[in-house]
């Protein structure tokens, strides 16, 4: 019992800095009380609405009252943004209406007055949107994150192809992560083999070469890639100088997907090399000698004897690189340009630019769920207890 108390500070730290923010953030993807708190009476009245015709006068009157109250409490802007996310165009309709109604004398009919300001108020879908924006617990962020939408009738439909953003991006992220994992494996396997089978002094030196970039600031490394890869960069200069490419045909290797893949492979390579090395170090070279004495050529010996024994390292390294790659943010942000962005960059965009935290959280939730799913599949196929992480 007492030794367990020693980790209490760590547990508290993790709770405050990791678990709690994560829970709060994931909570935002499902719980959105802003509109529900601001328009409680309107939403209550809308519950009795038939869903087809324009709502009756009391609904308009109540909403006008609550909107004017929200304006006084300076939450109107945020409410308008929320509603606008459910249906584009409602932000201006809302703000315009409130502005007009506030300056005008109290009308005989709020209904007529508001429809006069913006005919959208006569449409049923407008009120469906308000009703949905008012859901306290909602799945609309997740639907949005998966390029789905709720049909007015209640069913779930796919967004039209030209509006699908997140699923293709998620697909691209998966494909790129898989590609980077494969590249890391291809590049890292021989390095790990070399280190594991070198005499101790040289092995330490080689290991250092793998680790030094690991210790260098990510920003510095990424910037170095910019210096190397940009159109006026070292590689293009070199290729142009020796005449391999014409001056006007310089290759764009950065600010696109190529840049993202190159830089991320470089950044993530140590995560592949280290687990591989730790596994390979435990495989005596004797096995390869034994295989040779039994009549196997190098390929047979490698495929049948060496490779299967390194699988726990391959699995660990691949899982590590893949999971890191799938959530990678800084490198694609710096060198990815338009076409090299990954799902995390979209999360960041919604966190920092569009301030749609609910959607950002839902995207994060989708990513987390996806990784968890992959992990389960992986565990079923390989067995995590067989992995050697380092």
């Amino acid at each position, binding site marked *: 019992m007492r030794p367990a108390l020693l980790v209490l500070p760590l547990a508290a730290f993790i709770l405050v800095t990791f678990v709690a923010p994560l829970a709060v953030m994931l909570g935002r993807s499902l719980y959105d009380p802003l509109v529900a708190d601001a328009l409680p009476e309107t939403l209550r009245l809308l519950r009795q609405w038939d869903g087809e015709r324009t709502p009756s006068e009391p609904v308009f009157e109540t909403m006008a009252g609550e909107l004017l109250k929200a304006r006084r409490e300076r939450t109107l802007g945020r409410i308008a943004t929320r509603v606008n996310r459910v249906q584009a165009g409602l932000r201006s309709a809302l703000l315009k209406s409130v502005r007009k109604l506030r300056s005008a004398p109290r009308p005989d009919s709020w209904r007529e007055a508001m429809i006069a300001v913006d005919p959208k108020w006569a449409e049923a879908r407008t009120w469906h949107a308000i009703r949905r924006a008012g859901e306290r617990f909602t799945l609309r962020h997740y639907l949005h994150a998966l390029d789905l939408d709720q049909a007015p009738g209640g069913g779930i439909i796919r967004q039209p192809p030209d509006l699908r953003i997140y699923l293709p991006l998620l697909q691209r992220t998966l494909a790129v992560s898989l590609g980077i994992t494969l590249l890391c494996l291809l590049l890292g396997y021989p390095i790990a083999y070399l280190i594991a089978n070198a005499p101790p002094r040289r092995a330490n030196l080689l290991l250092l070469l793998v680790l030094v970039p690991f210790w260098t600031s990510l920003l510095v490394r990424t910037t170095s890639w910019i210096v190397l890869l940009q159109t006026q960069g070292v590689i293009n200069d070199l290729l142009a100088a020796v005449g391999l490419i014409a001056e006007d045909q310089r290759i764009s290797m950065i600010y696109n997907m190529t840049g993202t893949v190159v830089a991320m492979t470089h950044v993530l390579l140590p995560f592949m090399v280290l687990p591989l090395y730790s596994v390979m170090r435990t495989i005596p070279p004797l096995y390869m*000698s034994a295989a*040779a*004495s039994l009549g*196997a050529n190098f390929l047979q010996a490698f495929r049948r004897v060496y490779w299967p024994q390194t699988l726990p390292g391959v699995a660990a390294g691949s899982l590590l690189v893949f999971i890191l790659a799938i959530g990678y943010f800084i490198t694609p942000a710096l060198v990815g340009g338009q076409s090299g962005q990954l799902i995390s960059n979209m999360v960041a965009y919604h966190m920092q630019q569009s301030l749609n935290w609910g959607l950002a959280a839902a995207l994060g939730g989708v990513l987390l769920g996806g990784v968890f799913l992959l992990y389960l599949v992986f565990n079923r196929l390989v067995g995590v207890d067989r992995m050697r992480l380092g």
Partner: protein
Amino acid sequence: MAEHGTGPLMDSSPKVHVEFEGVSKSYDGRTMVVRDLDLVVYEGEFLTLLGPSGSGKTTCLMMLAGFQVPTSGAIRIGGRAVDDLPPRKRDIGVVFQNYALFPHMTVGENLSFPLEVRGMDPQEIRKRVGGSLELVRLEGLEGRRPGELSGGQQQRVAIARALVFEPALVLMDEPLGALDRRLREEMQYEVRRIQRKLGVTVVYVTHDQQEAMAMSDRVAVFQRGRIEQVAPPEALYEEPEREFVARFIGDNNLLHGRVIGVEGDLCRVETGGQIVTAFRVVPCQVGDLVSVAIRPERVAVSPKPGLYGNELDARIDDIAFLGDHLRLRMTVCDSPDFIAKIPNIVGHGGVLEGDRVRVGWTLTDARALEPDESGEGFP
């Protein structure tokens, strides 16, 4: 090195299987691990390379298997020089020190491996795997992994794997080193039984002289990269040619002295003020330094005067009772730690610690040998 004696299998003009000719090996280009080595292994023979660690015996085995390349000299297998032949083409079965069974494969897969890489028909493979498991008495264990087997079982699998593709030559590198004593003795018998049954040539490496004696047709004794003597076990024990062999095989008493007279096969050696007459193994001359070796069990204490060719004065320093024999530690000719083993037939025989007694042995039980290079122990 003269071939000394012939084993049981060498009576009808044996055929040479493996030949080392002037083989030297150096890993760093300065120190020689194996020095100018000549050795012949006959077909069907069980030859053991015996020596302390670092004496070059394993290096010889690895050169024969093809994992190491001789710095100079030639190795021939069946009359063909094998310098350019990679290990996989030598068709030699190797049993490694720690077995080197592939841990991720079952016993059956381990045994199939050499047959599969040879592209053998699956049905034939099954037959052969079954046959070789039967040979090492491990029927029914195909499905186990090496980690689930005992040390002795792993050893048997390793032997079966080295034999399953029917090589004519099998190399074993201290294969029993990791086993406990009882299992080791059982496996010695097993290895010997299998070798006799199949008639394969075995080159076996060990540092355990009892193991070498128990199993081999001939033993090559290694020291510092050279072969000191190659002979059947009996000959090594009874007729060692060099001091190192005399000391390494069994117990031996060594008296160091100078030759003062030579008469035919015999020589007279002056040591510690007394004269010992010994069998002249090396063609020594008067004035040469020699080591005289006498086996402890050939030493008689207080013998009837005139019965033995050698009779000397001795002082008993210590008596140990070891059940079937007594072990007397004596000082003879100023040499301490001279051991005599007295069979426990007549009890103590009346001797006590501190007694001054006469000790004796026959002329041929004393062997005058060329001393070790180091020359330690000489006045």
